Every structure is written in C-alpha cells, then in structure tokens.
C-alpha cells in the first residue's frame, strides 16, 4: 500500500470528508473531489494510482468521467461505487474499463482489499 495515491469522486460532500478521513487514518494518500470535472483537474496535476468513482453524479456522471480518465490515463485503475445497486451500472463501468465495482453501502475492508488489488495490477502493468 505504500505510495498508493487514491482519488475519490462523489457528489456527496459529507461522504468525501468521512471517507478521506478514514483512509488517511489508514495511511493511504487520498484526495476527495465532488465532481468529474474537478477529478480531471486533479489528474492533470497529481500522479494518481486508483480512482474511486461514484456512478451517479450531477453534470458529468461516473461513466463519462471514467471514459475521460481511461482515454487520457489508461494506466490509472478505476473502481466504480454505485448506490444504484443495479449490477448493470457496475457492469457498464467494467465494460468501459473499470477495474471493479462496489455497491453502497460497502464494507470498508472489502473496499480496501479491492484498492490494494487495483494498485497491484497498476504496478504490474507499469512494469510490463
């Protein structure tokens, strides 16, 4: 988990605040933003390993953001977070190149596990 840098994108401010706090407490370098546009801004400046992306957001939604990220930064891994429970939205994310998806409300340990795996995959890809 060392050096893993995570970006979490969700339109719910409270959620971002809490989530960032909890991951920082677990020594994970994390930035939280509230929209897809902001996320893309951050990606320009920072070197991010894994993006956690909410599917349903006003303006630029999760899937659009995912597409942008994947075209501009194909190496970055993305995990979709969906409150829509529907597997379709998650699967749609997968089709557009997301690494995995989690359904809200999620178990933090499960998510951390997925983050770790995504990060490992990214590192493997970078080496190759």
């Amino acid at each position, binding site marked *: 988990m060392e050096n893993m840098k995570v970006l979490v994108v969700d339109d719910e401010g*409270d959620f971002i605040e809490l989530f960032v706090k909890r991951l920082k407490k677990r020594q994970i370098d994390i930035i939280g933003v509230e929209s897809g546009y902001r996320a893309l801004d951050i990606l320009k400046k920072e070197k991010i390993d894994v993006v956690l992306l909410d599917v349903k957001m006003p303006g630029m939604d999760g899937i659009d953001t995912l597409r942008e990220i994947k075209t501009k930064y194909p190496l970055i891994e993305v995990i979709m977070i969906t*409150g*829509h429970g*529907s*597997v379709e939205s998650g699967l749609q994310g997968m089709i557009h190149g997301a690494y995995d998806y989690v359904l*809200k409300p999620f178990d933090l340990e499960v998510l951390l596990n997925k983050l770790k795996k995504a990060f490992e995959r990214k590192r493997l890809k970078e080496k190759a």
Partner: protein
Amino acid sequence: MEIEIYGRIRGKIITTVFLFSLIPMVFLVFFLLYVQFDKIYTDKITNTLKTMVYNKKRSIDLFFEERIAQIKTLAYTHNYETLSNDKYLSELLNVVQSTSKSIVDLGIINQDGEHVAYAGPYKLKGVNYKNEQWFHEVLFKEIYISDVFMGFRKFPHIIIALMRKDGGKFWILRATIDSNVFNSLVQGAQVGEKGDAYLVNSDSVLQTPSRFGSQVLSKIDFLNNEVFNSIIDEKVLHLNKIFVGLSRIDIKKWHLVITKDGNEEMSQFNDVKIDAVLILIVFILIIIVGTFMVSKSIIKGLILSEKKKSMIDANLMQSSKMAALGKLAAGVAHEINNPLALIKESAGWIKDLLSEEEQEKIKNFVEYEKMANKIELHVERARSVTHRMLGFARRLEPAQENVDFNMLADQTVSFLESEALHRNIKIEKNLLKDIPLITTDTAQVQQVILNILDNAIDAIGKNGTIGLRTGYNDSENKIFLAISDTGIGIPQEEAKKIFDPFYTTKRPGDGTGLGLAISYNIIEKLGGKIEVDSTVGVGSTFTIYLPIRRIA
C-alpha cells in the same frame, strides 16, 4: 350491468333478424294468398260463370226456337177442321210427345176465344179465353210466348200460342210447356252446394223456382230493373262474395240469373291458404329457434372474448403496475443507499477514532463501541432490504436471462417470509443442488411463484407448512418447482376451474380471480405448464414446469 348490456345486444340481434327475415316472408305469403290468388280466382270464377251463362242462355233460346218451330209445323201442316177434332188432336199430341216430352197439351181456340178442341191432362175444353190477356197478345203478335202464369188450371205454366189466318177467319193453336222439363233445363246450371239458377221476367218475377225457398211467381228483390236493363251480353256481378251471372233471353224479356257462392268456389283454395299459413308458422318457428340459437352463440362468443380481453388488460395492467413499482423501488433504494453509506462510514469513523483512545480514560467506551457496531449492524440490515428491492426492480425489466431457479425461488419466498412467520406458517425448502440454469423471464416467473405462494398462505390461514421443492426432469428437459401447502385443498370439480379468469374463492374485493389465470398464461408463454394436485382437507400442490433452453 354487463348482463344488461348483453341482454340489450341480444334483443337487438333478435329483433333485427326477425324483422329482416319475417317481414319479406309474411309480406310475400299474404300478398300472394290474399291479393294475387284472390284476384286470379275471382277472374277464373267470373270467366267460368260468363261462359256458363252464355251457354245456358243459348240452350234456353234454342229450346224456345225448337218449340216454336214444332208448333208452327203443326199449325201449317193442318187445317182448322182437322185439328178441331179432339181425337185427331190427341193422336197428334202423342206423336209430338213421342219425340219430345216438353209439350204437355195442345188446344185449338177459335176466333171467339172458345176452346174448341183440347188434348191433354186438364179438363179445359169449352173454356173461353176471350178475356185472357194472352189471347189479345197473340192476335196482335201472331206468335206469343207467355210468362209463367196460373191460368184456368191454377198451376204455374208457360204457353206458346200461334195464330193462323185462314181466309177471313183465324184460329189459334196453343201448346203448354212442361214446367218440369223447362225448370230442369234451367236448374241444370245450379252448380255446387250453394249455386242457383233461375229465370226472372222484366218485373223480377221468378219464372223457374229458385233453389233456396223462392217459388215460381214470387218476386226476387236483390236485383233491380236498373241492373237488368244494363245487361247487353253476359254480365257477372259480385255481391257479398256471391258471383251473379246475368244474361238476357232474347226471345222473351226474361233474364237468366246464375249465382255461385264465392266462398264455396274458393274452399279448395282456402285449404291451400291454410297450408301456406301453417308452413309460414313452421318457418317462423324455425327462424325463432334459429335466431335464439345464433344470438346465444354470439353472446357466448362476446362474453368469451370480453373475458379474454379483460384478462389481457389485467395482465397488461399488472405488468405496468409491476414496472412502475420496479422503478419506484429502484429510486427509493438508490436514495437510501447513499445516506446508508454515510451512516456506515460515520459509524466506522467513530470506531476508527475509538481505537486511538485509551479505554480507561473514557467512561462509556464500551457502550460507544457497542453502539457503533450496532449502527453498522442495522445499516447492514437496511442494506439487505434495499439490495433486495433493487434486485426485484431489476428483474421486472422483461428479459431472457439465465436464471438459477433455486435462487429465484429462494428470493421470492423471502418476500413473504415475514407474512408466513406472522401466521405461524413454516416454510420448508428442499431445493435440488446444481439445478441447470434456465433461460427465462425472471420477473414473470417470480410473479407466478408469488401468486401461488400467496394462494398457499391464504389456503392455510394460520398454522401450517408450505413446502418448496425444485427438481429436474431430464427426459422432458424440464425443471420444476413444486409448491405444496397444508391448506384446505380444492374440491375435484373446482380444480378444473381454478385457472379460469375471474374464478375466485375470495370475498369480492379481496381477489380479482386473475392471479392463477395470469400465472397459467405466463407459464404457457414461457413454454412451460402448471399442474395442480389437491385433496380436500389435506392440501394442494402446484407444480411449475419450465423448459431448459440451452444457449447455443
């Protein structure tokens, strides 16, 4: 209300068919029978009567012509002296009567009206005719035929008298016509049971007896002079269904009257009329029966199609209701999942923070930790509800998908678990492991299972068991789900009807009677079938079979 509508439709059909089939038929029959046939028959009778009157008139004329010729011959082949001899006259009468019986007697009357010779059955010799009217007529006309009169013999008769001039003198030969012969000549034209024939003179006095009552020399009153004067040739009148044929007898101012009863003449035709009316009645009965049968079958068909239609409507409504419900469920679940995530993260954060604290320094540390865990636990509970709702919603979208039948049965039961628990109904599952996947519409199958489970719970009421068993029939390439209950059961005769639309045992308002009908429909469309096996008092088992369609 519906019955009323169908009754009205039926009434309309019946009325229309009746009117369109009966009116032309009745019209035709009555037009033919009472207008055309009457006319034809009247014409026919009129013509027959005309011919008859003409022939009879001719024969009467001929009769008189012959008699006159006979008398003339006698008078002109003998002289007065010879004929005045009674004996000779008798011999002469015998000769005449040997060829024709129509002359009854002969008499010779001299210039002074004295009856000088007589041959015949009456004692008329010596009678003086000087003051008789006919005596003067014959002097004036030479040949005279009398009307019927009583005369000296006090019996109705007709005479023919001929005057012969001999030098300065004259004498008269007089013959009497046998009224029987003459009458029978006229009465020969009396046809049928009510036909009549007679002669009248210009004063409407009968010259031959009428068949019905009126004697010779009585007056008839139903024909007046005006009518007689209008006769030129033969004429036929219609008087109250009686045909009257009239003709003039040329030799006298007499009229021949022949009557025929129209009713009698038409009696044969009336039989035809009765037959026709009977046939008409039979046809009408056939039409009535036919109309009732047709209208009945139409209404039956209407009701059937109406039932089918309302089933389709109900099915559609059900689907759209479910679709709306699915959308609602998905929306609600999504809106709740976000705050749930927040609550869970908050509880998690509390736990994170607590783990940094020294337990001894915080008085209620254990309680805080316990409550944080409780929050997480209940968020988990809520999550399972929303995820189930989402799962339900997702399946409402019609699709062909690979379905694990066991999972489907399991999930569907979970909707009714609390209801079952509340009623103390135990649910026993006996699901075959590694059951093959089927390709079908999950939502629809789920609806069917729900319907059957719902009925099972209703059948049990309280305290009982619902069994779920899945299995696989390799030979038929089908999987099945048997849902059994320990409910009241279904009587044998009712079992056939349970899949009919609108069949329900629930109180009005509680059930639509469409649940099983729709279920049957759905499963049939998915290529499967539903079977029911039930024993009253023991319970029922509904088995759903669905085909395994292997995806190529």
